[in-house]
């Protein structure tokens, strides 16, 4: 392991994790870290940030572990040699939420069709159809762009700046939901944040099915070859811990008592369903 | 007309004014003199409504100025004040002088003219565009004066207005004050530590001591007939002698002052303890041999103890059993060959001796 130049009072190892906000804000991590700390005599330091910023921290070697949900950018990150040993530990679905009155009439549509409809209705004159986008290059925003693309639209040409119906919030999920609520607009949200906010919102789930809405969370180590002084041992432990049976059980049951439905599904046995390799969900890092 | 009725002012536990009573007539020039810290500035500030008396009332033309806060502005606008520590606004000299006129909504042309005139009058012509902060002490004081004068107040209050000025400038300012009073009928109330200024300018003088007016009177009264030993000392009567009346007839008494007998005009009865005040100017000194014995008054032989220059004069002090000082011109000192240690005779008339009842303490 590394020699840490800052003297630490305890003998505990420190593990620094940069995580996407949805994992943190739902308090999932708060539930499982104490278990890890006890098992491995380590101290876990979690920095919660947007996917973009989290990747930046990783790229600079400021953390030991990344936990994000944007496969495309994760691939680039790993491809560039910054990340290693990615493991998928959970998934859930994005949802399209909107006002109960559903002015665009998208309830029950496929996500792609729903987006096309929102855009059409939104661009019509005298319309009160609005779509609020995260607009922050987060995992959710990436997903949104992917849906526009899948719907056959060119994001920057046909969507962005095509009218006041499409508004980029440039903020976190919670704030974006609040804004959509205020404007009685549509938006794309991860289920966890939506459920956490549901009590304060007049927005309802309108579209929650469709393969494209799949949201996959993974953890990976920062490449110790790039940054020799990252804490790779404990980092390895953490990745393995996330795919361990105990934790997978925790994930599957997390939030059920509070929201009446789970916020995340354990990835352990669903690797086929979510389209990743078995190794990515099962094989411990060595 | 300004009436002071039992005006008192205390700061925390310190009583500064303790029942000042007096009356300044319309069109009068009234000087307040008194030792440093007597409360002169405090009194002027009370009149200008800058502070509130602890007790008593100040009335201007019958109105209690502190009674109705709503009237403060219109009362204040009757008055102009020059402060002891001159302070100027951080702008040009001309702008400084114009402030009061602007408050009264005077038009630009009138302001320019009046300011020019005022600058001329206080001897600062051509200083209009200078930044006021860079002025010398005396220049600032003159700007403050001009500032208060241009508004042509009915009552002009001045707190030691010439403290920082040289005699030539002082004379100019005094002339100006005199003209303002004469030509505009402005009532003027000013404080000064320069008693002679009080005398030159004022119709009446109030001597502020121990929180009250120890004496109010014409300059002549205050300077020749001080009401008390303290006032006498303060107005520059150098010879103040303690004694007891031992004999008396026809208003002329003999006072025993530590063994030396002095004749004085006085109404006090035998046995009364008195202070005798004799102005140095009324005391003659002559070489012992030349003195005429037939003088009807006091002739005391003595030895010169000091000869000290004082302006164009010399102050000669003689020990006659009690110290007596006189003022002689340099010429006289030379002519009479007066020098320390020399024997002389000191003479003064009984009329020149002003007796006051001795202080009770």
């Amino acid at each position, binding site marked *: 392991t590394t020699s840490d130049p800052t003297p630490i009072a305890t003998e505990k190892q420190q593990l620094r994790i940069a995580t996407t906000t949805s994992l943190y804000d739902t308090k999932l991590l708060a539930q499982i870290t104490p278990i890890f700390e006890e098992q491995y005599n380590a101290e876990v330091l979690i920095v919660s940030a947007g996917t973009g910023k989290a990747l930046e921290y990783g790229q600079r070697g400021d953390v030991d572990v990344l936990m994000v949900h944007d496969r495309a950018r994760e691939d680039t990150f790993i491809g560039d040699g910054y990340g290693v040993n990615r493991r998928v530990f959970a998934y859930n679905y994005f949802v399209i939420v909107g006002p109960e009155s559903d002015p665009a009439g998208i309830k029950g549509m496929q996500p792609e069709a729903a987006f096309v409809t929102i855009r059409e209705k939104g661009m019509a004159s005298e319309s009160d159809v609005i779509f609020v986008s995260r607009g922050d290059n987060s995992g959710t925003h990436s997903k949104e762009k992917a849906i526009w693309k899948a719907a056959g639209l060119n994001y920057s040409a046909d969507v962005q700046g095509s009218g006041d119906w499409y508004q980029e919030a440039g903020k976190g999920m919670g704030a974006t939901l609040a804004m959509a609520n205020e404007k009685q607009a549509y938006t794309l949200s991860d289920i966890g944040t939506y459920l956490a906010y549901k009590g304060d919102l007049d927005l309802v789930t309108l579209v929650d099915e469709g393969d494209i809405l799949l949201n996959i969370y993974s953890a990976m180590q920062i490449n110790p070859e790039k940054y020799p002084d990252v804490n790779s041992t404990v980092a390895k432990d953490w990745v393995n811990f996330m795919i361990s049976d105990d934790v997978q059980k925790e994930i599957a049951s997390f939030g059920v008592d509070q929201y009446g439905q789970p916020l995340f599904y354990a990835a352990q046995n669903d690797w086929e369903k979510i389209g990743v390799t078995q190794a990515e969900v099962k094989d411990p890092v060595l | 007309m300004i009436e002071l009725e039992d005006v008192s002012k205390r700061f925390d536990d310190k009583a500064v004014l303790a029942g000042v009573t007096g009356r300044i007539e319309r069109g009068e020039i009234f000087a307040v003199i008194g030792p440093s810290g007597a409360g002169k500035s405090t009194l002027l500030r009370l009149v200008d409504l*800058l502070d509130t008396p602890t007790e008593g009332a100040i009335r201007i033309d019958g109105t209690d100025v502190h009674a109705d806060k709503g009237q403060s502005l219109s009362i204040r606008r009757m008055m102009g004040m020059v402060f002891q520590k001159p302070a100027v606004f951080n*702008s040009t000299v001309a702008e400084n002088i114009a402030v009061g006129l602007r408050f009264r909504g005077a038009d630009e042309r009138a302001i320019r003219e009046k300011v020019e005139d005022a600058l001329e009058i206080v001897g600062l012509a051509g200083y209009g565009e200078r930044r006021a902060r860079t002025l010398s002490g005396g220049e600032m004081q003159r700007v403050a004066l001009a500032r208060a004068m241009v508004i042509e107040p009915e009552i002009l209050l001045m707190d030691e207005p010439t403290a920082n000025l040289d005699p030539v400038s002082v004379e100019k300012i005094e002339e100006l004050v005199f003209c303002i009073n004469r030509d505009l009928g402005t009532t003027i109330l000013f404080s000064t530590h320069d008693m002679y200024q009080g005398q030159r300018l004022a119709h009446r003088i109030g001597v502020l001591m121990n929180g009250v007016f120890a004496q109010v009177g014409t300059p002549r009264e205050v300077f020749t007939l001080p009401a008390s030993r303290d006032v006498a000392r303060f107005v520059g009567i150098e010879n103040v002698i303690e004694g007891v009346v031992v004999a008396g007839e026809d208003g002329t008494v003999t006072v025993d002052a530590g063994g030396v007998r002095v004749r004085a005009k006085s109404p006090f009865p035998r046995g009364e303890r008195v202070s005798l005040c004799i102005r140095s100017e009324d005391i003659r000194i002559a070489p012992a041999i030349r003195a005429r014995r037939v003088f009807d008054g006091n002739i005391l032989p003595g030895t010169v103890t000091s000869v000290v220059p004082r302006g164009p004069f010399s102050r000669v002090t003689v020990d006659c059993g009690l110290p007596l000082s006189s003022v002689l011109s340099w010429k006289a000192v030379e002519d009479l060959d007066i020098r320390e240690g020399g024997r002389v005779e000191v003479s003064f008339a009984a009329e020149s001796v002003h007796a006051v009842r001795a202080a009770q303490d």
Partner: protein
Amino acid sequence: MYEIIEGFVEAIRLIVTLDPDVIAISARSVIISLTATVLATLLAIPLGATIYFGTFRGRKGLINLIQTLYALPTVVVGLLIFLLISRVGPFGFLRLLFTPTAMVIAQTVLILPIMTGLTISALSGVDPVLRDTLRSLGATRLQFLVNIMKEARFAILAAVAIGFGRAISEVGAAILVGGNIMASSFASSTRVLTTAISLETSMGNIPESIALGIVLLMIALGVNLAITTVQHR
């Protein structure tokens, strides 16, 4: 570190190419923060004067409260305004949330305490003899105030500079009540420089963030030069 240099290069590029987005965002920043500063100044001066010259009970407590409010986090200001103007809030009917107006209100509230406090400081810096001089020259309340302010203009304008600096650099309230919206019309958008910087940072675009920070500082420099010019008149 190279990001800083990159940031500088990017800043220059944005400026020389007159990037329309950046111009719109900058213009919005300046308009909103200047408006808030002007409003806050107009409120802070009479408020500060009333407190400074006042003799009412609880004056000291009030001054302490104002000093305490210096520590009001922008997020909290944002939240409070948000609660007041959100659809279900008491002023919801005005539909102000996520508008530039809301940002102006929030920034005004945010900088009001510091500007009031600094006004009080500025006033206490004026020679008491000058105050007496003004009174003795027969100044009305307004004339008195105007002239005292003139005398304290250096300190007052320093307060304005501080107020403006705080307004244009804050992000918590702007993002909460403004929403960092990038819509296609200028008036519906609420993205300002700080919220844009936050966004770029959260996306990991450090050079862009720094470039926008430089643009912001250049704007502040311009405003300050203007203030200094007035200050030394």
